[in-house]
């Protein structure tokens, strides 16, 4: 009776030490927690390269990647060749995304508002959305050539389907009660659209736009890989062909930051225009 607690005490104390650590980790503020994980990952990576016998050609060390990042950022801030290439890519993405979001919004409206659209057209778009659309890059190059057109159209092609599908779904988000309420107030169908269905659809539309902007980045960069010539994706391909993987990593990081910044802009717009839904979506 008295001995059993003393026997079990050591294991109990060990367990509490582990739970103490995990408790401390859970209580870390998010930025600190993310930083901790990044530092550990980079440390392991550096160790693998320094002492793990992995060739720097196959896996560049974080330090050399860091050097390249500084180099790339320097070139970007001084407005050199790389800045021009990045600007081309940004234009492709933004043009493609604007095209996709406006056309996609209109198509989504039509699908969502009509029985025929929902029945006959929506399933086809869902099929295309589920397919690996990136495989269409060669087709777009064959159709639109090696210039900027094939790239921004590919970006548009990648991002239009999530916009269409989410807009169409959003158009049916208003509840039967809400529509009944509007009818009882003698609202016209335009008023039901503008004051009820459209605001109700906004959270869906923004969900589509967020997927869309990320897809547009992928589409533009992939088209540059294959379509070649100009753009930031082309710079990645060139660096890779030189087996300058530290450079490749640095360029990919810049592309990630670009994607993140564009995503952030769409999120800002969402917070402004669909503020009332923020508690549900975040």
């Amino acid at each position, binding site marked *: 009776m008295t001995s059993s607690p003393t026997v079990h005490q050591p294991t109990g104390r060990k367990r509490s030490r582990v739970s103490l650590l995990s408790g401390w980790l859970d209580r870390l503020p998010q930025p600190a927690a993310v930083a901790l994980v990044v530092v550990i990952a980079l440390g392991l990576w550096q160790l693998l390269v320094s002492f793990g016998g992995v060739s720097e050609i196959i896996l560049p060390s974080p330090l050399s990647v860091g050097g390249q990042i500084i180099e790339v950022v320097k070139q970007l801030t001084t407005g050199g060749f790389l800045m021009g290439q990045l600007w081309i890519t940004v234009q492709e993405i933004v043009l493609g995304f604007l095209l996709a979001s406006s056309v996609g919004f209109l198509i989504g409206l039509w699908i969502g508002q009509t029985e025929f659209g929902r029945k006959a057209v929506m399933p086809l778009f869902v099929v295309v959305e589920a397919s690996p659309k990136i495989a269409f890059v060669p087709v777009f190059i064959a159709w639109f050539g090696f210039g900027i057109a094939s790239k921004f159209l590919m970006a548009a092609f990648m991002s239009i389907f999530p916009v269409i599908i989410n807009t169409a779904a959003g158009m049916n988000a208003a509840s039967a009660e809400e529509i009944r309420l509007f009818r009882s107030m003698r609202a016209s169908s335009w008023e039901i659209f503008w*004051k009820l269905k459209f605001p109700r659809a906004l959270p869906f539309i923004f969900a589509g736009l967020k997927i869309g902007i990320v897809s547009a980045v992928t589409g533009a960069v992939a088209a540059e890989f294959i379509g070649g010539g100009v753009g930031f994706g082309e710079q990645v391909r060139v660096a890779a062909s030189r087996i300058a993987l530290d450079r490749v990593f640095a360029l990919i990081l810049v592309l990630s930051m670009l994607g993140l910044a564009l995503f952030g802009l769409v999120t800002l717009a969402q917070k402004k225009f669909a503020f009332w839904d923020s508690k549900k979506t975040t």
Partner: protein
Amino acid sequence: MDVDVKTSYRIADLTKSFDRAGVVALQDVTLDVPQGSIISLIGPSGCGKSTLLSIMGGLLSQSTGTVELFGADVEGPPREVGIMFQKGTLLPWRSVIENILLPIEIQSGKKAARTARPQAEALLTMVGLSGSEERFPDELSGGMAQRAAICRMLITEPQVLLLDEPFGALDELTREKMDLEIQRIAAAQGATVIVVTHSIPEAVLLSDTVYAMATHPGRISEVIDIDLPRPRELSIMEDPAFGRYTTRVRRALDRGHDTAA
């Protein structure tokens, strides 16, 4: 018929059947509602009480029979009517005051809505929500949201209020308070009130006349006049007469149930 009392709704031989499955939702409904009175429609699920209210509100059309409001056939939602549903359905992207002004905005435009703002504020004060003008619906409790919905219904100064289980989602104490508020508002504006409910005490507390309904087919089975003095307070529920009325309504509903079984 008493010539002094105006009739608001006059419904004769109304039948409603839904095409799919050939269900007869309502059969041979006839009722006259004197202007300024409060009536309730009570009955089990499927008795067609909500369908009847929707027809009166012009949201559904009857299959046969006539529905007149102030002598005119009801074709679409009448201007004189304010409707409230079980769910308040405030729009979450509009502040409380913008929600209340929505009917004005839809019927007369944004400018008219701005002009009506003092009336909306007065209504909010009346239901005890003053200071909540700029709050958003997700900051309101269920009872507060229903109060705001009442204001939205009243902003157009309707002569007839149609309430479809308006406080069904609220707790009993809050519901009784809201019922008294409806009574007060109706008396103040001389409005006719038609309430769909499945609470017997609520029906007796509110009504001048209770219409007990039965199913298969949906119909009015009994009409019970509630002769209790107005304005009614919650204390009236302890009155033996109140108890007798609830028993009568309950028995009427039981009989309706028996014939169906």
